[in-house]
């Protein structure tokens, strides 16, 4: 089999050969979307005043609290929502994932009483956003923890099931809480504000 034949044989087996060409209107829209995306530092230097904000739309998310060393506080997502996960010792990080059962939660006005049911609650700063994760460095623990960092993961499958949005940006300070495996949104997890901090203080004071 010479090179051409070999190449031809591979091309016959090209998995993309059945892929229909993209719709030109869709391509044009994609290109436009990309250009209208807020850029980071480089663009700011060119004189546009874009915020380096990553708008992370986090689903009404189930949270998996995982101690990194395998000292786990994992429990069924449908399980009891009030007992905190058993954490045997301080983990290096707590990982907050998103489950398949997110969505459909209704918002209510944040109250200290409702907030008090959170088993993970902290005041922290976003240190990085990369590879599908937001990493926060907690400065104050109200509940759960302690851990050196908290990793929020949001896979694509759940992104459609958006119930609320939290805008994260690197260096920003946030108050974040999670109840029984669910990240609490609807105003419970949000950029730091005095009012919300007061609420956190009352809930866990």
């Amino acid at each position: 089999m010479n090179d051409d034949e070999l190449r031809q044989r591979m091309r016959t087996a090209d998995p993309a050969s059945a892929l229909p060409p993209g719709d030109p209107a869709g391509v044009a829209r994609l290109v436009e979307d990309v250009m209208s995306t807020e850029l980071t530092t480089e663009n700011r230097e060119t004189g546009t005043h874009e915020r380096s904000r990553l708008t992370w739309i986090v689903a009404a998310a189930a949270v998996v609290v995982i101690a990194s060393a395998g000292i786990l506080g994992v429990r069924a997502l449908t399980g009891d929502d009030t007992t905190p996960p058993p954490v045997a010792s301080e983990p290096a990080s707590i990982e907050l994932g998103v489950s398949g059962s997110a969505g459909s939660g209704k918002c209510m006005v944040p109250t200290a009483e409702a907030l008090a049911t959170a088993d993970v609650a902290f005041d922290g700063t976003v240190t990085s956003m990369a590879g599908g994760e937001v990493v926060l460095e907690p400065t104050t623990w109200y509940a759960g923890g302690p851990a050196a960092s908290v990793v929020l993961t949001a896979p694509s499958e759940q992104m459609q099931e958006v119930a609320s949005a939290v805008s994260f940006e690197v260096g920003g300070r946030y108050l974040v809480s999670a109840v029984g495996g669910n990240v609490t949104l609807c105003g419970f997890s949000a950029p730091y504000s005095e009012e919300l901090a007061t609420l956190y203080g009352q809930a866990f004071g």
Partner: protein
Amino acid sequence: MAQLAANQAQLECDGEVPGPASGVVGQSGIVDESRRERFERVAPGLVEPLRRYLARRTDADTAEDVLAETLLVCWRRIDDLPEEPLPWAYAVAANCLRNAERAARRQRRVAAKVAALEPRPVAAEPADDPDLAQALGRLRAEDAELLRLWAWEQLAPAEIATVLGISANAASIRLHRAREKLRTELRKTERVSGHEGSREGRTS
């Protein structure tokens, strides 16, 4: 989701792609309009090949996200984009795809703990030519990828070199060797599965 993924790309998936330091971009990219014009001219031609590149290597959802990330890197680094942008864009896509897969693997580990998420489907390998799929599978990953870039993306060795971040000379030599290895593996596979075309040499 595209927005989310695209933003992440700014932070990391162009890390290994050659080009001037990003600080330079700010100084040279003064005229925003010319950046737009160039991107509008170049990007539509990148979309289709990148779609195909990704469709060959990952599932549909990931492909869509990584396409958006890749284009965003191209837009942000439009001043670094070479005259022949496609191999460079493939290299960006490869980085973005690696990141996406890392994240997916991490997610699967979490999912395994709580049994809440289905694993993602793996990338498609040629299904209608199982001998070829097997033979490719037995090659080293780098060799198989080199052959895919050659046969599926139809790149020349110099372009493959750009995608893989190696010298054109090295790409040429490795491609030659990879083809030889594939031929050898194909012969083995076909002998085992009895698909060999000519058996007249055999006596029994």
